[in-house]
């Protein structure tokens, strides 16, 4: 589904991502782990087509991100870090606008809006201004936006940051459910989250892939933490 080969991204002289290669199969939920500044967000931005790689190729569903950006973007639901939204719009208006922007209209738009608002528990706040929503609700709106065009791939940059434990649990459950229909990549630095939601983990450190392995073996959070610390060289 996603094929990344020798991806390198420089910001000026600084290499944020260096020679990263990995593959994500259809239907997988992949956890993207790494310390702050390891290049997680940069990689995701390249995947979503916001930034362009300095070198290397990225393909999503067989389309190259650089050469067919619109085809790729049609197949991706992207939620950026910190989840920016238009505060002056109402939830419903915002989703309507995003659906239109992604080429969904008419009865399809109505049914998709209904679906995502149900799925992300937004029914009660749909007439509310986004600027008045709490962090948890904003995160849900971002997720609903990512889902609205029925993308094959979901790219979620820190979907649970800033949420309270109950919300984290809810979101985690939702992502698990979504993993049955979509291929999901999510970044986080909460280890227990990876353990509970993902079936594959990629640890990235200093811009390079340090570990790329399946979680089918049933590692628990403690083991993962051990691995993480060993790889990132923390003390």
């Amino acid at each position, binding site marked *: 589904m996603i094929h990344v080969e020798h991806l390198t991204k420089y910001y000026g002289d600084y290499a944020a991502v260096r020679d990263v290669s990995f593959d994500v199969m259809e239907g997988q939920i992949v956890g993207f782990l790494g310390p702050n500044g390891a290049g997680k967000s940069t990689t995701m*931005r390249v995947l979503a087509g916001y930034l362009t790689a300095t070198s290397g190729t990225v393909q999503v569903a067989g389309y190259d991100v650089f050469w067919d*950006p619109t085809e790729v973007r049609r197949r991706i639901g992207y939620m*950026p870090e910190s989840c920016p939204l238009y505060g002056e719009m109402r939830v419903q208006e915002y989703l309507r606008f995003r659906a*239109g922007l992604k*080429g969904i209209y008419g009865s399809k738009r109505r049914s998709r809006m209904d679906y995502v608002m149900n799925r992300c528990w937004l029914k009660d706040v749909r007439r509310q201004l986004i600027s008045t929503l709490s962090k948890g609700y904003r995160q849900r709106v971002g997720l609903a936006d990512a889902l609205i065009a029925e993308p094959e791939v979901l790219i979620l940059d820190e979907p649970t940051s800033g949420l309270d434990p109950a919300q984290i649990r809810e979101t985690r459950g939702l992502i698990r459910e979504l993993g049955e229909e979509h291929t999901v990549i999510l970044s986080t630095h909460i280890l227990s989250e990876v353990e509970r939601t993902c079936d594959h983990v990629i640890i990235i450190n200093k811009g390079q892939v340090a570990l790329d392995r399946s979680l089918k073996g049933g590692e628990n959070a403690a083991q993962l933490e051990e691995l993480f610390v060993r790889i990132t060289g923390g003390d």
Partner: protein
Amino acid sequence: MRPMLTLIRREFTAYFLSPIAYVALTVFLLGTGYLFGFVALDLLTKKGPVGIEYPMQEMLGDERFWLVFLLIPALLTMRLFAEERSSGTLELLLTAPIRDWQVVAAKFIAAMGFYVVLWLPTLLYLPALIGLQKAEFHPEWSLSAISMLGGVGAMAIILLLLAAPIRPGIKLVLFLLPLIALFAAGATLLFVDGSIKSGAVLSAAGLLGLVFLVAAPLLIGRPCGYRFDTLVGFVLGVWLLLAFAHTAYYGWRHFVKEDVSLIHIVSRIDHWPVVTSYLGIVLAGAMFLAIGMLVSSMVKSQMVAALISLGLSLAFVLPAFWRPETDTGSLDYRLRNFFSVPVHFHHDFTRGLIDSRNLVLYASVILCCLFLTVRSLESRRWR
């Protein structure tokens, strides 16, 4: 195309969701209201030789008006990209399946739309300014007049069809009627009028439209499965343009050949300077908006965007203040006039002149700024 329409709609409504729109509208209307009520109208209604020749000049030909006016485009464009950049929503916008140039075009069109809305209330001054008298109706039923009215009717029907909430399939059938009527009108004129040029072009266009209509489903290859909505919208749009061209052309013929208008309105001043003034307003405004948008796409803070675009726009106003005594044929005189918008209005637009030099300046600045805006958005890719 439709994602762009969605974006235009959002950008346009966003003006009304923030206080900017209301501040700009109020300040602007107070300003133009003052100029109209206390300056232009005063002079216009004075008895004797004091009355002025070109009332529009009193409002638009004044360089001080432009100095203040520059605030408006800066206010309207400062948020376009700067706000999205600072709040991070730019990332969301640019990862949607829409091209960078479409984003730029949509934002520019929305800004233009609001700019035009800003000027609409000033149309209220016009009846007083022109001193309209009772309209007289002199119907002269020549073929051209009938064809012109037919075109207007066709436009009305097509517009209604576009807006009507009926099934696209029925729309497709219904809009064939005005289309055929237009075609018939064009063809009749071709034979009756004897002039090949008149009807031939539009009839040929009509025929092409029909062919397109029949061929489109076949070309797309899915006779029943294609997107009716999009296709019907597109075809209707094309036909609206053709109907407009038809109306304009036969209206012009009617005006020129028979030299009798359908409706006769007596006004105290010439109406052409008013028309050209508004044309100039739209074009010059588009230039300032394009400059503002370019600046907004390069900075993060709205305030900075507004100030820089104000500074850049001043380059097109300040030359009007600097008037040393020089030979009117000299290069620096001509350069100064070429770059100063108030002079364009003082000399040309408010007197009913459309000078191609002004248009060239506006068009080139607009295109250059739009192009650079697209590039500046793209720069995130290699930075």
